[in-house]
């Protein structure tokens, strides 16, 4: 354990969180949990942006992180509305049972 925090610590945490989120998107069948995993991925990206913003000693990265948060809110609202409409029409929220456009 090093005595001081370096940017590498934060980059490593960001990478781990990104892997967890990608695993959730690729592996889970329940679409609500897939949307939650997308939030994890966006958070990993935000950690990276803030880290590099701190390295360069300016706040532009934090502004971009704020933009990502705004887009994440919009994405979640629209995604969940789509999910509710889908459940109303098809009666399922499992990713591999929604295959009308397959083949």
């Amino acid at each position, binding site marked *: 354990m090093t*005595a*001081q*925090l*370096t940017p*590498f610590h934060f*980059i490593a*945490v960001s*990478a781990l*969180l*990104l*892997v*967890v*989120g*990608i*695993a*959730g998107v*690729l*592996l*889970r*069948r*329940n679409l*609500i*949990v897939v949307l*939650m*995993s997308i*939030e*994890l991925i966006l*958070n990993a990206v*935000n*950690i990276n942006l*803030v880290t590099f913003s*701190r390295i360069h*000693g*300016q*706040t*532009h990265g*934090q*502004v971009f*992180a*704020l*933009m990502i*948060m*705004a*887009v*994440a*809110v*919009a994405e*979640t*609202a*629209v995604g*969940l*509305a*789509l*999910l*509710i409409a889908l*459940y*109303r029409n098809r009666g*399922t*929220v*499992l990713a591999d049972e929604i295959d009308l456009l397959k083949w």
Partner: protein
Amino acid sequence: MVPVLLFYFFSLLAIGGGILTVTRRSVVVSGVWLIVSLLGVAGLFLLEGAEFLFVAQLILYVGGIILLFLIAVMLVNFNAAVYTRRFRNGWPAVLSICLLLAAELLALLSAGRFAAPVTPAPGLPNADAVADALLSKYLVAFELASVVLLAAVVGAVLMGQKRKEHAS
């Protein structure tokens, strides 16, 4: 020493909460663990001196997005998902992405990049600096974000409402 311990604590919250979010069977339990993970990320923001993002994370994510998820869970009420398989076959892709990111981290570590601790430059407090950048250089992006949010609200209402039966 204290920041290092806090860092490991918040990282444990973020990553452990994320893993439990992905692996739990019940969607509500996943949502609760997502709260833990997002709180850990908020703590990491605080450690990096991004106080404004810390507050935004608490209000937007923990206050807003989690509420959306839990309301959606109540509306969908899909109990069959609890009793079926949780995972589908995507292990090769996940494993290859894991290997790729591990290789990149090892390359960064062996090259010694980003290994020097950063001393923050003296200047304005964080919220002031973010507001300066947001309302001067990124003003157009700021206004466009509000348009995106408005479009998302209208779209969510349109898609979430019950379809009216049309004549013919």
